[in-house]
């Protein structure tokens, strides 16, 4: 506090100069907000890429799935590499089907239940992957302005203390301190606004993907249920 950052009138007011003149609390806030902004944008870029990849993979899978190809063949090709999205749900369901059916399932209802559980689990894992880190965007979006405001209040406080020390209320003395303090709020808003927009867009995108995957899971569950009904009486008969 001893070297109070009182800017003399006529001092350069560039952004960098303002940052250097600020007190250490304000500097800390500004640096934190800058880091948050960088991380926000990293998440946004990452998610946008991930969602577009996911969408493409879903499209390809649906194309393959409904092409009339044998499910066993599909399972064999998919399980060789690490599947994503609908692929992972399909693989999880098929794995459970094979384990139970090939060893001879006693109850078709129990088998159906197990397959549904496996698919739910796979779906949840996929969704977790999709929606992970969106919470950080939400946090930055809501807390960023407050953090910036905190920096501003502290900055204005110190600059007023400096003004009181200088015993002059000239606007030229008051203005630089306030400008430098307001820079903190500006950075806070700069980080928060894209975060809020991105959060809303990404969460709605994730919701759409989730709906598509859930729809596929239900459909696949229906297909498997029909298969069970057809194959279990045959096993019994055999």
């Amino acid at each position, binding site marked *: 506090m001893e070297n109070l950052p009182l800017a003399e009138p006529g001092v*350069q*007011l560039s*952004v960098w100069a303002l940052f250097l003149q600020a007190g250490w609390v304000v500097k800390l806030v500004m640096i934190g907000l800058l880091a948050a902004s*960088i991380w926000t*944008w*990293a998440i946004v*870029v*990452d*998610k946008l890429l991930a969602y577009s990849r996911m969408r493409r993979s879903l499209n390809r899978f649906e194309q393959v799935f409904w092409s009339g190809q044998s499910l066993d063949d599909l399972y064999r090709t998919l399980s060789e590499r690490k599947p994503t999205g609908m692929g992972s749900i399909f693989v999880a369901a098929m794995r459970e089907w094979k384990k139970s059916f090939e060893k001879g399932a006693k109850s078709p209802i129990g088998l159906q239940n197990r397959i549904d559980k496996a698919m739910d689990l796979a779906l949840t894992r996929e969704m977790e992957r999709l929606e992970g880190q969106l919470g950080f965007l939400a946090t930055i979006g809501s807390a960023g302005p407050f953090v910036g405001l905190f920096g501003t209040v502290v900055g204005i406080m110190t600059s007023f203390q400096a003004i009181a020390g200088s015993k002059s209320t000239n606007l030229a003395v008051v203005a630089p301190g306030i400008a430098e303090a307001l820079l903190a709020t500006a950075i806070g808003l700069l980080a928060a606004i894209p975060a809020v927009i991105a959060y809303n867009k990404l969460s709605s995108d994730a919701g759409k993907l989730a709906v598509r995957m859930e729809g596929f899971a239900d459909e696949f569950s229906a297909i498997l249920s029909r298969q069970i009904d057809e194959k279990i009486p045959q096993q019994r008969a055999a």
Partner: protein
Amino acid sequence: MKAGLTTSVVLHAAVLGFGLFSLSAPAPLEVADVEALPVDIVPLSEMTQIQEGDKKAPMAEKAAPTPTERPDVVENAEKIGDNDIDTENPPTPDGKPKPVKTAEAAAPAPTPVAKPALEDTPKPKEEPKPVPATELAPVPAPQEEVKPEPVKEPEPKPEPVKQPEPAVKPEPKPEPVKQAEPKPAEQPEETVAAIEPVKPDAIAEAIAEEKPAPAEESVQLPSSAPAPQAKPRPAEAQTAKANERKASEKPVKEASSKPKSDDTGSIEDQINSVLNKDKAKGGGAKRSTQTSALGGEKNKGGKLSRGEEDAFLRQLQNCWSVPAGAENGDSLTAVVAFQVDPGSLKVTGRPQVETSSGNRAFDQSAVRAIMKCSDQGLQLPLGKEDIWSDVAITFDPRGMYF
């Protein structure tokens, strides 16, 4: 995630870098230098009412009386001037009246009609004339009373007077005194001796003719050449007296009174003694430092403040007992005028009913109310005498007003 982070960092670096170079130091706000216009709020009355000032001075934005020379302030002074005490007299212009008076005094001097008779002596008198004339010339200058120098000159004069006295003493006092008075101016003793005998005669004659003399004066003035003879004497006497007075009061009185009582004879002396030769010092003691500007003698057209007016009217209302039957506001109104003595705050004389209400009892009740309040002492603000010293009040049961 790596891709996202690197893109983000690159993005931020680009934006910050751009910001540092392009957003640095916003152009300072150009503020036009505008001089503030001083605005005075001036009450309308200052423009419309007569302000204290000088009647002969040129008009200026603000009326002001002629500046006074003395800086010391006398409290509560109301009249402009250099005096120590406030007086009603207007200030008089400086000292020129005096020379005029001396001239006048000189003119009547010729009165000594007898002098022509002693025509032998006039010659020596004429000779001395130039001397007194030269003496006279310097005298008027000191008459302005400003310089102490003249005082010194007269002082030595009385001394020589004393010297001649002992010689003449045997004679009656009046004579020597006169001799001393007129001639004191460094008279060459010889001429003095010559003149002395003449004067007593002339004086004696003058005494005898005292009253007729003035009448003759006017006639003789033009004709008689000898007039100058007398001139120097009274003039010198005057100057001597004036100077003496200035020097110190007591000696002045003695000197001036003695010759008067003793001489009684010379009319000029009498006139001179009656005439006040001191510069009339008019004016009050209020000082002014501004250059004079057109205006009246004092601020006029003032008004009683609302509170002062209310207090006065309420006092009258308390004194007034409205006659029975008139309270109901039958539009009975009477205007009563009266003068107030500023000193005692009491009504002088008897209030006059200016506009009668038509109801005698009502009019008289108003007059009684004023007299009753007058006995108690009217509540009027000091310093505004010119406003309330002569007032007319409208008596109306619904409310009084000026």
